[in-house]
């Protein structure tokens, strides 16, 4: 058993910290998220230059061949910086599918992903599906080797910036069957793809995406037709592991900021941090954070385990992170008093990002049930 980071991993962390220090102070971030574009292409290029877009890919595919611990480090630091660029969406999620795709698909798509030329988004959610990844109405019909895609996906995170989408669609079976789900690579510029882009409460962007008779050929199918649900679960768990890391990054900043604020803000003749009730609240925030770090390490170290064990790890971690995100976010605002309510301070922005992480890929209730069923 070992919970220490290698020198190489520490170096990686330092690299990202410098990147954020240079490019991501609060004002620069505000400029970025208030811009028309909503993200910084320039930052994205820098991430590519630093090699970060290649973290999980094999050297053969042009990547750094790193594991989940390295992805965890990247996500945690991005969480501290509240980075909006779609790293998890592109590299962890879509990258998770692509690095398990066929040789030819990898050769076709990974270079432009790793170079930063193309951004990817995963279109999985549907209005009726809530957090059930198998509840899919978007359908694909097949004629010869060609497919036709129809239906609507909602709240596709990062889609406004993406050139490519990976879409989960039903090739057979009933609406919630795990069997009959396939994954397709879709060029966003294809005929029949239309999007309604919007900003999200956490400073990112997403889209409602409609597919109307979108034509796809056989090369767009990832894996076996109708047999992709297990892969979706795997990549979703990897994404959850990264989201947990992002969350603990955000929590650590919120906790530090809150403690600092309570040391300086005075009321009734003393720093409010001298009030025992506030002290204990901050202690509980700290403990929630420590428990979240523990679960984040745990899930990232268990991503290679077999399905049930991995799925339990991911659901357990997500439950802890959801609860901690809510408690820490709400408490940080409360302890900052009126100031915590203002858009001007970073507190609210971390709170909002954490609130969205709660929902992404399933909230605490969803994962409690999943955990229990896996037990």
């Amino acid at each position, binding site marked *: 058993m070992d919970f220490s980071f290698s020198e190489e991993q520490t170096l990686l962390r330092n690299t990202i910290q410098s990147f954020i220090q240079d490019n991501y102070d609060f004002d620069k971030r505000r400029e970025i998220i*208030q811009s*028309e574009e909503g993200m910084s292409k320039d930052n994205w290029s820098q991430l590519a230059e630093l090699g970060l877009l290649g973290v999980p890919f094999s050297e053969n595919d042009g990547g750094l061949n790193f594991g989940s611990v390295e992805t965890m480090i990247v996500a945690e630091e991005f969480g501290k910086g509240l980075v909006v660029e779609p790293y998890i969406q592109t590299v962890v999620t879509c990258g998770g599918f692509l690095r398990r795709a066929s040789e030819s698909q990898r050769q076709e798509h990974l270079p432009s992903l790793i170079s930063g030329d193309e951004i990817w988004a995963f279109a999985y*959610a549907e*209005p*009726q*599906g*809530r*957090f*059930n990844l198998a*509840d899919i109405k978007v359908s694909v019909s097949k004629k010869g080797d060609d497919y036709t895609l129809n239906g609507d996906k*909602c*709240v596709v*995170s990062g889609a406004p910036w993406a050139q490519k989408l990976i879409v989960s669609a039903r090739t057979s079976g009933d*609406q*919630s069957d795990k069997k009959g789900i396939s994954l397709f690579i879709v060029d966003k510029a294809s005929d029949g793809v239309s999007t*309604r882009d*919007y*900003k*999200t*409460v*956490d400073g990112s962007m*997403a889209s*409602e995406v409609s597919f109307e008779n979108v034509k796809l050929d056989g090369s767009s199918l990832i894996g076996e037709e109708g047999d992709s649900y297990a892969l979706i679960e795997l990549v979703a768990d990897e994404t959850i592991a990264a989201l947990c890391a992002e969350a603990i990054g955000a929590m650590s900043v919120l906790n530090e900021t809150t403690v600092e604020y309570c040391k300086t803000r*005075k*009321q*009734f*003749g003393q720093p409010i941090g001298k*009030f025992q*009730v*506030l002290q204990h609240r901050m202690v509980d925030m700290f403990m929630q954070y420590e428990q979240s770090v523990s679960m984040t390490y745990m899930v990232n170290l268990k991503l290679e385990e077999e399905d049930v064990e991995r799925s339990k790890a991911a659901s357990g971690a997500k439950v802890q992170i959801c609860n901690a995100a*809510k408690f820490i976010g*709400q408490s940080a*605002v*409360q302890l900052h*008093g*009126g100031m*915590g*309510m*203002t*858009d*001007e301070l970073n507190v*609210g*922005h971390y*709170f*909002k990002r954490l*609130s*969205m992480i709660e*929902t992404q890929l399933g*909230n605490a*209730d969803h994962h*409690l*049930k999943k955990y229990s069923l896996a037990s």
Partner: protein
Amino acid sequence: MDLNFTKADQEFRDEVREFIAENFSSENNAGQNIEKYHEVTSDQMKEGILSWHKTLYKKGWIAPHWPVEYGGVDWSITQRYIWDQECANAGTTPLIPFGLTMLGPVIIAFGNDHQKDWVLKGILSGDDWWCQGYSEPGAGSDLASLRTKAERNGDHYIVNGHKIWTTLAQYADWMFCLVRTSNEGKPQEGISFLLIDMNTPGIEVKPIITIDGGHEVNEVFLEDVKVPVENLVGEENMGWTIAKFLLGNERTGIAGVARSKKAIDKLKDIANSELNNGEPLMKDSSFNKKITELEVDLTALEYTELRTLAKESQGQGPGVESSILKIKGTEIQQKISELTLEAIGNYASPYITPLSVRNFGSNYLEVGPEHTQGVAQNYFGMRKTSIYGGSNEIQRNIIAKMVLGL
């Protein structure tokens, strides 16, 4: 002991219900309709807020908690409770409390005849929009440490200072304001209560955008603002007494029971239409349980409020009960907003910019089902309820001291 309304009370309820049905429609109050508020201009918003006020003014029902001689209505506590209930059930536009609930009773208790005349008239008619100049950057919960200074200069005070969290000051014609007129004695002893015309030179109102993206609160900067001496309420340096009187008066409807009931009904509607594994989310036992717990908690609060009202109607002042109502009331409101956010699942995410700050964002059009609109903003915005108006920590301190004697 008896839970029933008298026949007279029942008749009153019917009358009220009928009046509201005939005179209120949400259409002309769009400013308060959160699903639509991004389609409304700022002027329309102010007009919308005042529309219901002016209807009630015409009817003579605008200030039921004031003495009749000053324009109030001769309603019993039960009738006032019924009125609040019915307004909440119909979802009427909440009245702006700064004049009606806060300043009015202060003027009635402490104002001179001239003030009683012009101030109360303007409040009742809605022609004067008041805001509250209490908090300062260095004095949030700890009002005694406020520093905004009023120096006597002939017939005027010259006011310099900086107020913050001033709710809806962007619409205000007047501000009632705590200022420091003396540095002698205990900090609370040198405070006075001034009425300030917001159009006086030297006043600048700067918006504070909150985490829900809304513009409700402001900073107010006062630089050499000339305030006529006759705008002093009560004696110089008796502001602390007035401030305490005012806080004790803020109780009516503070628990927000009836509005929370409506909000739970709406939450249930949402949970019945949102699907979870092919079934209405309302059928999910875990989510259902959370709503049920909330309903039970709200029922308990409802009866706690009724017990408080009953006491009050027997002449026993409400006292610290209002702290319980504030704490539980806001906790429940926050929890409802939290569960509503949870209910809408992935549609928590889209951000619709409120009109008042359109320049800060870019989504004007709705995304997702109508019931998801503004839900996330509301969740974030509701965090303020446990902070403003005496944080819930302060309320607990008050109970510890005043009730438990600790």
